[in-house]
């Protein structure tokens, strides 16, 4: 009987050690990633790491809850020999983290009670709980349970037409407008809504110091630029300014070029 228990104990301790070892490795690689590769780290991979950690903690929990696992609480660990000398075996087992099995490390490693700060907080919490009395506590428990079950129900059963309110709230928060998408794509694609050729009214002051400008037709007509384009008289300082005018601009350039070519540079 005792031997069976001992064997069970051994087996469960072995598996626990291996699971904890896995967890340690994952933590190690995660910390390494956070410290060294944080420039390349993306949020989904951080989430993946957390998910991995939580999965492993889950397996450890399942292992501990397993019926075949003897209750570890009933086991006691007593240090038999403490020495301030370095123990090579121990150092190898713990990967150089615990080189000496001495009086300093025993309170930390063989601790069964929680940390002093945690103990303080727990004491405070239990004092608080004792203070408020059983009925109030019961009511609080019930409220919490109700809230949780409401939330769970909402999360598990998405219903679009549950409430006029919730439906309205959901409708007020669309984050994009397909009509806008089309308008923007059209604008970037071929200038829909941008290239307005306004009929050339009064020319913007200070733009052209080139004398009278014949207001040609407002439509964008084909401009055959023959030899006249090379000799755009008086266009020098004006040209860079002219391009800034959408709509008005094509008309003006057309008329200017016409003016230039009508001067026939060779007929001077």
């Amino acid at each position, binding site marked *: 009987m005792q031997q069976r228990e001992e064997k069970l104990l051994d087996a469960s301790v072995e598996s626990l050690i291996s699971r904890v070892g896995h967890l340690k490795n994952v933590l190690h690689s995660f910390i390494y990633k956070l410290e060294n590769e944080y420039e390349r780290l993306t949020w989904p991979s951080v989430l993946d790491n957390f998910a991995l950690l939580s999965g492993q903690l889950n397996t450890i929990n399942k292992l501990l809850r397993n019926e075949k696992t003897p209750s570890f609480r009933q086991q006691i660990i007593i240090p038999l020999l403490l020495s301030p000398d370095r123990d090579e075996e121990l150092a190898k087992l713990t990967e150089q983290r615990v080189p000496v099995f001495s009086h300093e490390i025993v309170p930390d490693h063989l601790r069964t009670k929680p940390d002093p700060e945690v103990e303080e907080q727990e004491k405070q919490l239990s004092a608080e709980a004792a203070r408020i009395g059983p009925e109030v506590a019961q009511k609080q428990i019930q409220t919490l349970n109700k809230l949780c079950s409401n939330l769970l129900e909402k999360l598990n059963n998405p219903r679009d037409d549950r409430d006029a309110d919730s439906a309205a709230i959901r409708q007020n928060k669309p984050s994009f407008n397909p009509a*806008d998408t089309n308008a923007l794509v059209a604008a970037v694609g071929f200038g829909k809504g941008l290239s307005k050729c306004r009929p050339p009214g009064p020319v913007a002051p200070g733009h052209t110091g080139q004398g009278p400008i014949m207001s040609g037709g407002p439509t964008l007509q084909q401009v055959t630029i023959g030899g006249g384009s090379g000799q755009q008289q008086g266009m020098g300082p004006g040209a860079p300014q002219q391009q800034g005018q959408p709509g008005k601009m094509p008309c003006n350039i057309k008329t200017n070029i016409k003016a230039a070519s009508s001067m026939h540079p060779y007929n001077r």
Partner: protein
Amino acid sequence: MEAPPVSVLPITGGTISMMEYLLQGSVLDQALESLLHRLRGLCDNMEPETFADHELVYLLKGQQGNPFLLRARRSLSHPTVPWHLRYLGQPEVGDKSRHALVRNCVDVAASHSLPDFLNEMGFRMDHEFVAKGHIFRKGVLKVVVSKLSRILVPENTENTEPLSLSYLVELSVLVPAGQDTMSEDMRSFAEQLKPLVHLEKIDPKRHM
């Protein structure tokens, strides 16, 4: 008229013809912050980059129907940086199952005399706009979130009015002609931005 396919590198080592894969969507102003947060998390970690560009679109009308279109872009926030001239071809109609818009793309840098040069060549400026926004990168994928503004007073890039209440979101990749592996990656990235933004391939001709 289409640009002739560049299959051989010019002697001066000019441009290689690249294909641009594009997915577009938009996001309303009020949802911009959440989109930026999400992009900051999903994309490569770098200093958030904003840009302010002024783009002019030049047309050359030949004898045949389709005018030839060139886009000249300059930075308003870095005025001394060279201009960027870009040619975009017609979207490739081929694989209907391909998830992104694919088109030929030629990019060159140009000096500040570019508008004069284009005018001398016979191009005419068709329209211009100002685009301001943020740019993110994930590997080769580029995400640009920009607010397009119409220029009210010609030549005055200060005096602009926004074109709509949304920001344009574009996901693009430039790959050398021949590789076709990017559309899957783009689609999975676009999935991660739902339901904030729906990035899809939008054929500009449909909205003519």
